[in-house]
């Protein structure tokens, strides 16, 4: 009996909610289209979902440390345009340009982080400003429309995969990158850095007083977000081609994904795996919308309703005291961090 109860409790805690939601959405997709779970179409889905999942991991670091990064969408757009302009169809430039992109992503993250931590500007404003700067600068540099083209080897990561795998057909490189980023993020959250990040989001003064370098950790979180936007830019560029609009509005989708994963805006709570699962839920929802042939104009409305409902449900669980052996004091406003 107790085991069942424990299992039920675990399934309804905010972090696990997203996995339950994922199962539901996948089940709905399966009912509508049983062919979806055959290797090739599942792989195609994951290939398409990979950039959002990777962005969610990057955004998770920033959010869990108590900040926002609204500049990722503009950064993804900027990276794609930079790649096209600098590579300009020449194979030999592929890897140097990729290195430049990574440096650019790190630089943008560093600027975001330093303005937020050293100059004490709220991250909402810092990254909103960065969004405007990147958006304007990229269009100024290219004169409105992106020029140049990507090389074939640049597009391999977004388009190709490991061929002739039994059952699955092709394992996309995007999926491999996604799994690597996911594993790296989970490991990172278990290191000292990860603990400091979580503590900084929960109570930055307590963290600072116990000797943690809160500002350094938060700045590094922005850098990680910049790097994740770079990786996502490489994948999206390879998959979808060159356009300055690819990133527009992506920041809101990513933050939604992270919050859907039970990560609390304001920091200190939530797991990176759940944040990435949140991104998968959103992509699965888009697939479901396709299969129900929902009019494109109605999709935002359904998406909005689902987000509010899911977060309200998670919030309801969070405000209730969790009956565990180590009883929480009744005055506490929130239950302990679910791990």
């Amino acid at each position, binding site marked *: 009996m107790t085991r069942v109860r424990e299992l039920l409790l675990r399934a309804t805690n905010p972090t696990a909610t997203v996995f339950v939601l994922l199962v539901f959405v996948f089940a709905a997709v399966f009912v509508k289209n049983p062919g979806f779970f055959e290797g090739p179409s599942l792989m195609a889905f994951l290939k398409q979902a990979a950039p959002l999942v990777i962005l969610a991991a990057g955004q998770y670091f920033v959010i869990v440390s108590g900040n926002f990064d609204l500049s990722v969408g503009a950064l993804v757009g900027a990276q794609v345009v930079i790649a096209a302009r600098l590579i300009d169809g020449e194979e030999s430039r592929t890897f140097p340009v990729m290195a430049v992109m990574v440096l650019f992503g790190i630089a943008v993250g560093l600027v975001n982080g330093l303005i937020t931590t050293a100059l004490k500007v*709220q991250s909402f404003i810092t990254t909103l400003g960065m969004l405007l700067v990147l958006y304007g600068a990229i269009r100024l540099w290219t004169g409105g429309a992106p020029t140049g083209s990507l090389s074939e080897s640049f597009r391999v990561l977004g388009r190709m995969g490991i061929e002739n795998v039994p059952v699955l057909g092709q394992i996309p490189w995007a999926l491999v990158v996604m799994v690597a980023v996911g594993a790296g993020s989970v490991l990172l959250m278990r290191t000292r850095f990860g603990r400091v990040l979580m503590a900084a989001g929960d109570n930055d003064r307590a963290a600072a007083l116990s000797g943690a370098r809160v500002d350094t950790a938060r700045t590094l979180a922005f850098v990680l977000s910049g790097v994740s936007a770079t990786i996502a830019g490489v994948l999206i560029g390879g998959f979808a081609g060159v356009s300055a609009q690819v990133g527009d509005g992506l920041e809101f989708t990513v933050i939604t994904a992270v919050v859907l994963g039970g990560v609390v805006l304001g920091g200190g709570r939530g797991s990176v795996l759940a944040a990435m699962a949140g991104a998968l839920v959103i992509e699965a929802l888009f697939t479901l919308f396709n299969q129900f042939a929902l009019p494109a104009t109605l999709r935002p409305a359904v998406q909005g309703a689902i987000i509010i409902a899911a977060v309200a449900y998670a919030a309801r669980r969070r405000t209730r005291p969790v009956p565990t052996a180590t009883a929480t004091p009744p005055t506490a406003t929130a239950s302990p961090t679910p791990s």
Partner: protein
Amino acid sequence: MTSLHKPRLQKPRLGTTALIYLALAGVLVVGGTAVALDGGNLFATATIVDMLTRTSLTGFLAIGMTLVILCRSLDLSVGYTAALSSLVAATTMDGQVANIPLAIAAVLLVSGLVGAANGAVTAYLGVNPFITTLGTGLIIKGYLDTQYKGPAGDVPAVFQQFGYTRLGPVPVSTVVMLAVAAAAIWFLRSSRTGHHMYAVGGDLDVARMSGIRTGRTLMTAHILCGMTAGAAGLLLAARFGTGSAEAYTNLYELDAIAAVVLGGTLLLGGKGGVAGTVAGVAILAVLDTVFNVLQIDPFAKDVLRGVVIITAVAIYARRQLDRHARRPRFAEGKAS
């Protein structure tokens, strides 16, 4: 606890607001000089009219936004609410002068209901306002995109005057906006709910323990914010002559938030005011006009705006750190 609010709030507020009006004067001087060097005149009647016209729309949105941000909330749906309101106004009026009062009432009702929904979900379901208002924004966007393929409704010429008439160099819409701002300043300084808003934004738990109905306060702020977005929608309808669903693509909500923060209101709530917000709106309007007169590339405009916003907030943050933020924060730490 509540009795502490008055003395603590008023001293720093005066200082910060004065600083922002100083910044506005600085922007005017620098902008005027730049335009003069370019051979123009920033203070010619035409440019002043342009400047003042720009303030009214963002002004309405920013006044309401100030109230929710003071309560440590946020409203990302105002752009969509304004677009919806412009459609409600134009379709209700339908070219008939007699329908104008009904249309205004309908707009305030609809936009107030959107605000009430935002407030209720945020206050009583415990959803983060960022998500709540992003969600309602998306829901309205879905409704608008599905229901309206293009402009709809017809605004009678009398009401279009609201968008175009001027008293001297000052557009009527700006006068109305300033009147709403004055009402909001009075509301925050002199009404009980206004004081409660500062308390709720300062520390929700302390406010609740002091006997404030925090949920109601948050609801009020969101409803008022929705209604100012409705006023912005009326202005949009008056300017375009029809209702336009496309209006939400201009991302007015981000402009409004930028103006509020430029005006010295803390995004973390509990500190700031509408007087500062009006200056913030004016700073953005002056910048836009200067960029226009100098014929700066529209994309460079975005870059400059971003830099100006970050710089301004960094300067405020430095000031607040030095003087005020430290003492209240320690007091708050002991209290919780």
